[in-house]
C-alpha cells in the first residue's frame, strides 16, 4: 500500500468525503490559505472552491453555532481550529448545544452532523495556551464523539467516519504527527468511531495510549522487545465512545497496564482507562496501573523545561518495566531528536 503523511491522509479523507457528499463544507480561520491548516485543506480548497471551503473571521463562539445551524438544515459542516486552545470559546455551543441537540429534543429536531477538527499538542515552544489537548474535558459530556487519530490510515479513516456520522464529532489532530508517514488505503474506508486498535500485540504488559503518545508507545515497545518484554500497544483512537472491550481484553491477558495520554492526569484519559481496569478487570490485574501524562503544570516555552514537561518513549518504556518489576534504569537512548522547525 502507498504511504502518505498524516497531513496528506487527513486531506485525502476530507476530499474523498466531499466528493461523495455535496452537503459537506469546510470553514474556520485559514482553511483556504495556501498553507491550508498544515496542508490538510489545500486540495479541498482547490478542488471544491470557495463555496465549500471558505475562510472566516475569528469568531469561534458564533461560528460554531452557525455551523450547528447549517448542520440542522442538512449541511455537514467541518469547522477547523488551527489550535484547539481557541475552542474554549466554542465550548458553550459545542457542549450546551451540539452535544444536547438530538437528546434534548427527543430526536424531534433531527441529528447534528457537525465535525470539528482541532490541532493539539506541542510544536515547539508553543507554550501554555497553544499546546493543550482537550480530549478529556470534551469527552466528559455525553452527546459528543471525540476521536484522536495517531496513524495516517486513521487520520483518513476517522475523517471519513466523522463525515458519515450523524452526531457531533470532534477530531483532535496532534501537531507533531502531521509529518508522520504510514500506509493508507486508496479508497474511503472509515475507521469505526468507538473502536480502539491493537497496533502491536504482546503478552506481558498492556500500554493504552492516545495520539502522539501511542506513536511514542510503539517506539517504546521496540526497545522493550529488545529487553524481552512483549508489550501490547492499544491506540485508543476514540475517547468517547470508549472501546472498553478492547482495553479489558488486553488487560485480562497481560495483567499489567500502563496508560499514556497527551494531556494531564487529573480527570484525564489516563485516569479513565485506569479506572476502567480497576472496575471491570480488577481480578486480572497483577500490579498497580501506571498513568503517564503531562507534568502537573502549564506548558513552559523554554526548551530546557519542555524537555522535562513532556513524557516520551523512554518514559513509557521505563513505566512498563517498572510495572513488571524490572529495573527501569537501563533504557537505551530511544527518544528521537526533535526535528521540528519553526515558527509553528
Amino acid at each position, binding site marked *: 500500500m502507498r504511504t502518505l503523511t498524516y497531513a496528506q491522509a487527513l486531506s485525502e479523507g476530507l476530499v474523498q468525503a466531499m466528493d461523495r457528499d455535496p452537503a459537506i463544507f469546510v470553514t474556520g480561520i485559514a482553511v483556504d490559505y495556501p498553507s491550508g491548516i498544515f496542508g490538510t485543506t489545500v486540495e479541498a480548497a482547490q478542488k471544491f472552491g470557495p463555496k465549500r471551503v471558505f475562510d472566516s473571521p475569528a469568531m469561534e463562539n458564533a461560528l460554531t453555532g*452557525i455551523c450547528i445551524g*447549517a448542520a440542522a438544515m442538512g449541511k455537514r459542516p467541518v469547522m477547523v481550529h488551527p489550535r484547539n486552545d481557541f475552542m474554549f470559546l466554542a465550548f458553550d455551543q459545542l457542549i450546551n448545544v451540539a452535544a444536547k441537540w438530538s437528546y434534548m429534543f427527543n430526536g424531534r429536531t433531527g441529528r447534528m452532523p457537525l465535525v470539528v477538527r482541532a490541532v493539539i499538542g506541542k510544536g515547539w515552544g508553543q507554550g501554555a495556551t497553544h499546546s493543550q489537548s482537550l480530549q478529556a474535558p470534551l469527552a466528559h459530556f455525553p452527546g459528543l464523539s471525540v476521536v484522536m487519530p495517531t496513524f495516517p490510515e486513521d487520520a483518513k479513516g476517522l475523517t471519513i467516519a466523522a463525515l458519515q456520522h450523524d452526531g457531533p464529532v470532534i477530531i483532535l489532530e496532534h501537531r507533531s504527527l502531521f509529518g508522520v508517514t504510514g500506509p493508507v488505503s486508496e479508497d474511503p474506508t472509515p475507521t469505526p468511531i468507538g473502536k480502539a486498535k491493537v497496533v502491536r500485540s504482546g503478552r506481558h504488559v498492556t500500554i493504552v495510549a492516545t495520539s502522539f503518545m501511542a506513536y511514542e508507545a510503539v517506539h517504546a515497545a521496540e526497545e522493550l522487545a529488545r529487553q524481552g518484554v512483549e508489550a501490547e500497544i492499544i491506540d485508543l483512537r476514540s475517547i468517547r465512545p470508549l472501546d472498553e472491550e478492547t482495553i479489558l481484553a488486553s488487560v485480562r491477558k497481560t495483567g499489567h497496564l500502563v496508560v499514556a495520554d497527551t494531556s494531564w492526569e487529573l480527570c484525564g484519559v489516563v485516569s479513565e482507562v485506569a479506572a476502567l481496569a480497576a472496575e471491570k478487570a480488577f481480578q486480572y490485574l497483577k500490579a498497580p496501573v501506571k498513568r503517564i501524562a503531562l507534568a502537573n503544570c502549564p506548558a513552559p516555552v523554554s526548551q530546557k523545561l519542555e524537555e522535562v514537561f513532556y513524557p516520551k518513549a523512554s518514559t513509557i518504556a521505563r513505566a512498563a518495566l517498572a510495572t513488571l518489576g524490572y529495573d527501569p534504569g537501563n533504557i537505551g537512548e530511544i527518544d528521537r531528536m526533535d526535528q521540528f522547525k519553526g515558527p509553528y
Partner: protein
Amino acid sequence: MALHRELLRIRSSEETIAARYKDQEMRTPTHLGTGQEAVAVGVCQALRLDDVVFSHHRCHNHFLAKGGSVFQLASELYGRATGCSGGRGGSVHLTDRERGVVFTSAILGEASAVATGAALSFQMDGGDRVAVTFFGEGSMDEGAIYECLNYAAIKRLPVLYVCENNLYATETRLDVRQAPGSDLCERARSFRLTAERIDGNDIVAVLEASQRAVDQLRRGEGPVFLECMTYRWREHVGPYFDHELDRTYRSQQEVEEWIERCPIKRSGERLVQQGLATRAELDVWAEAIQAEVTTAFDQARQAPWPEVSTLFDFV
C-alpha cells in the same frame, strides 16, 4: 382577524400556564410571554411554513405563533411523552420541525448563532427561505450576538434578528447594561445591517415591518435587525406578577401603564373601529379559544409519561 385569534390563543395558553404552574406539576422553569404576543404573531404572520424560527428562554409565544400546538406545549411542560420534545426539553426547549420551529435555548446568544447558520445553509441552497431569531435585549449584552451580526452582514444572509426589548433582563434595568443614550439599532447598523425600531405591542406595525424585512431577505439584500419595544407582564421566571411577591425592581405604575398598552386590547379595538368585529364577537372568540386551550391542557395532564426505557434514546 386571524392575527387577533392568534394573539388570543397565545394569551390564553400563557395565562393557563400561569394558573396551573402554581400546582407545582409543571416541573420546569418557565418564562411567560404575556404582554409580548404581538411581536411573535406579527413576525410569524410574515413568514412561510418553510421559513424557520429560533428562540430563547421566553419561547412559548414564538412556538405557538409559528404554528406549534398548545397540547404539545402543555405536554412538554407537564413532562409528558406527548410534549413537542417528548418531555425532555421543558419550557425552554421547544421544537416543531414541520411548522419551522427548529430550536430554542435558555442560554443567551446561542439560538441567534444557530439561526444565522440556518440562513447560511439557505443561502448556499439558493431559494428564498429565511431564518428568524427571537431574543431579548439581554442578548445584546453578550459578545456572541455581535459575531452573528457581523457574519450575517458580511455574507448578506437571509436572517432576521428580532430583538424584543422589554427593558429588563431578569430584574436588571437597561442602564446597568447599556451606556446612556445607547441605541441597539445603531449598533446593528454599525455592522451594516438594516435596522428599525418599532412598537412591539402594535400587531400591525410589527407585521408591516416584518413584511418589509422578509421581502429584503428574500431578495438577498442582506440581514435585518428589528428592535421591538414591548414589556413582560409577569415575573421573569414563574407564574406570578412581581407585586404578588413584593418585588420592587420595577414600579407597579410602570407595569400598569404597559398593561394599558396590551397588544390584544389594541388589536381588538382596531377590529371594532374598523367594523370587522363587535366587542361581543371578540368575547365569544376569546371564550371559544380559552375552552380549546383548557381542553388541551387537561388532555396534556392526562397524557402518558415517557417510558423509563427510553432514557438513553437519541444520545
